[in-house]
């Protein structure tokens, strides 16, 4: 993410807004490569040396026709990859305090002559057994620009440009009040997205769309008054949404043009963006708990004709989303299985109230009875409860499956 003064956009027909993505062409790759090279070769040099060289390159780059906002955007991404040396600072601060104190003791804090200054440095050098030049170097060492670069986290020119494009998009989304996203997505990715939404303290309303699910995402207070407060968090969510098989986002963004704030429409789909944005990395499926992993393995070997699939397609309940742990399939029969390893009575009751709305779906709820006893009445006929004690017995599940 960038500061908003570095945002570059394209406005289409005074209505649509787009980040001005950079293409992976020779020109841009050259600039990225030049910058990365400079950062890499600055390891173990002073920060101020790097800054000086960057100023020079920026001037040249502008003469060559590069936009200074692109230059500074790349610079700000690269700055975050620098590791700056922090050692010895507290010693230097102590020595500086000694210098200032002596200046106050001998000259009441006012030193206007060069020889008085030299006297202070030589006093300190006698006390510490270091040369006056060493003392001067220590005196200057606390200034940021005097610090040394310890390391630089390398990146390829193409990846830098792609990261830049993502940052540009995120910076634009900072100013949005609500994000609509169409997702074609598997259960695993969806679970990750819902988890992120929760973690970022956002909320959503879901509905069926042509390709899959449509989510309208904003924050708790948005219902009272639309606010840009959640823009930054929505921007953080973007990379997670982009892991979907297919996506399309739509947002209304406030942007100042000729000093007047206006709302523009931002729309972007995976097809349009995949050449510009970082490649999505799909993580390996990891099981939430041992119980699920254990069950999955055993069922695979003894389930017979029943096929088992983990984290199936998300299911819509009202305007909320439900992702069961497994779906079990035999010919045209399809039964969902949800394992409730951790629960409280209130939680289960609320969950069942919700699940009752799913009249067209068959569902087995496996409840760990070692956590307490629970009686559930008024179940609808498409929901079946299996209690287990720490370990799920496959036979119990098969028995339940046969009821459908």
């Amino acid at each position: 993410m960038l500061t908003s003064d570095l945002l570059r956009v394209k406005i289409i027909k005074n209505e649509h807004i787009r980040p001005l993505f950079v293409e992976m062409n020779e020109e841009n790759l050259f600039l990225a490569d030049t910058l990365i090279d400079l950062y890499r070769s600055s390891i173990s040099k002073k920060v101020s040396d790097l800054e000086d060289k960057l100023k020079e390159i920026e001037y040249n780059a502008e003469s060559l026709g590069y936009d200074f906002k692109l230059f500074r955007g790349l610079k700000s991404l690269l700055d975050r990859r620098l590791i700056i040396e922090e050692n010895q600072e507290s010693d230097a601060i102590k020595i500086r305090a000694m210098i200032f104190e002596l200046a106050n003791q001998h000259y009441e804090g006012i030193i206007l002559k060069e020889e008085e200054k030299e006297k202070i440095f030589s006093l300190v050098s006698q006390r510490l057994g270091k040369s006056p030049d060493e003392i001067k170097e220590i005196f200057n060492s606390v200034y940021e620009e005097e610090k040394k670069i310890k390391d630089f986290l390398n990146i390829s020119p193409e990846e830098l440009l792609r990261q830049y494009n993502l940052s540009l998009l995120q910076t634009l989304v900072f100013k949005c009040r609500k994000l609509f996203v169409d997702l074609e997505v598997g259960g695993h990715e969806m679970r990750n997205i819902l988890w992120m939404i929760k973690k970022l303290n956002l909320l959503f309303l879901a509905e069926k769309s042509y390709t899959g699910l449509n989510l309208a995402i904003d924050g708790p207070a948005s219902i009272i008054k639309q606010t840009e407060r959640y823009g930054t968090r929505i921007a953080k969510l973007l990379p997670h949404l982009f892991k979907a098989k297919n996506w399309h986002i739509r947002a209304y963004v406030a942007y100042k043009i000729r000093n007047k704030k206006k709302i523009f429409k931002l729309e972007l789909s995976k097809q349009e963006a995949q050449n510009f944005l970082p490649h999505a990395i799909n993580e390996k499926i990891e099981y939430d708990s041992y119980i699920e992993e254990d069950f999955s393995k055993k069922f695979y070997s003894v389930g017979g004709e029943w096929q088992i699939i983990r984290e199936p397609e998300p299911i819509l309940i009202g305007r909320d989303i439900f992702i069961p742990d497994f779906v079990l399939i035999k010919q045209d029969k399809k039964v969902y299985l949800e394992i409730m390893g951790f629960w409280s009575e209130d939680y289960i009751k609320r969950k069942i109230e919700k699940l009752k709305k799913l009249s067209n779906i068959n569902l087995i709820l496996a409840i760990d009875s070692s956590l307490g006893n629970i009686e559930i009445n008024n179940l609808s006929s498409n929901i079946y409860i299996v209690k287990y004690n720490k370990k799920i017995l496959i036979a119990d599940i098969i028995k339940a499956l046969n009821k459908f």
Partner: protein
Amino acid sequence: MLELTYSAGTIIVRSDQNFDLSLPFLTYDPRVDAYRCYACKYGELIKYLEKKKISYTDNVIKPIEGNIVQKKDLSLKEYQEEALEAWLLNDKKGIVVLPTGTGKTFVGLAAISNVRAPTLIVVPTLELMDQWYWRVKEFFDVSIGRFGGGYKEIEYITIITYDSAYINAEQIGNKFELMIFDEVHHLPSEGFRQIALLSASPYRLGLTATPEREDGLHDLLPSLVGDIVYRRSVIEMKGKYLAPFEIVRYYVDLNDEERKRYEELRKKFKKFFDELGIKLDSLEDFYQMILKSGKDRKAREALIAWNEARKLALNASNKLNVLERILEKHKGERILIFTEYNSFARLISKKYLIPEVTYRTPEKERIITMERFRKGIYNVLVTSKVLEEGIDVPSANVGIILSGSGSKREFIQRLGRILRPMKDKNAILYEIVTRNTSEVNVSYRRRRELLTGFFD
């Protein structure tokens, strides 16, 4: 039966039966199938429910546990007592306006002593955070937390920066019963006002010397904190509670080399303005140029030229000669030097071995330097923007503005830094201005209201 719970800066209202919840303040939220309002409506909501005799369970405030014992008397001055009284009479809501240097902090401490409940103190800078921390520690036996600038502690009394409070508003909104907004004029800005909106704290106190904002947003303060309940001006308090002061202005010239460069730069941006047919005197023109500079190379060059010219005037080398004369004259006194740019402050620090306090000074050193200045181990300090707000620098009597902006607030705050009462010593504020440059206007702008006598 209704149930009120706090959720991320809002209050959720649920009913176990089909209770009609179309109440004022409440909005139906389909995402959670319940009703919602801003947390700051908490007090109003409760009042309404009581009045209508609607029964409810209240799970909103989850106060930090602990207790507080006062160990030292606050010995309030008369006007501090009056301010506290006015606030208490206004249901423990509202704003107290007192000039810098008259001990606003003590009004805040008195409020804490009176409410004796978990308190959040919101401050604009890390220096103020430290200052409040030590003050609370001095007068109370209580666990104190700091939040911001690397700290992340939530305690019975928590001191937090506006930035951190904005970011964490959802997490802190129901943990405190009293909120104190120091330098409350910051609060109405688009972002910061959410700290107040997303909090359920029923008791609120705002402190400032200058509540009015140039953008007019101070109109929001009554709904966020409460009305102004007490106000005293500099003129009223000068001499009695504040040091008498005088302002002395020196003019300097650019040296030949600087003057030549200044005229070159001026020509450059003037030509650009003439071509566009706009004058140089309004801010509006200026925004136009900044806006254009995004795309237009010429505009950008004009802007760079303008910036450099401004810097030349503000950092004129002849200013150092005058500075040296003033320093010599006040040798042994307590002196604060103010600059507009960090780089100028650093130059002075290096040249005269005067400790600097700016945003670029390492935090550890800043703390040591402030403490030593307070104790009198250091007599002189150079600073850029950091010290402007409310920091206790108890006994400086000479202020030197080497360079600054046209902001009235900044000027008043700089003046306030040297207005702490002192024995036998008048406060003097020096201004050093570069003749025949735009800085003359800048200096006039910042003090014109003082000249016309309207100043508080």
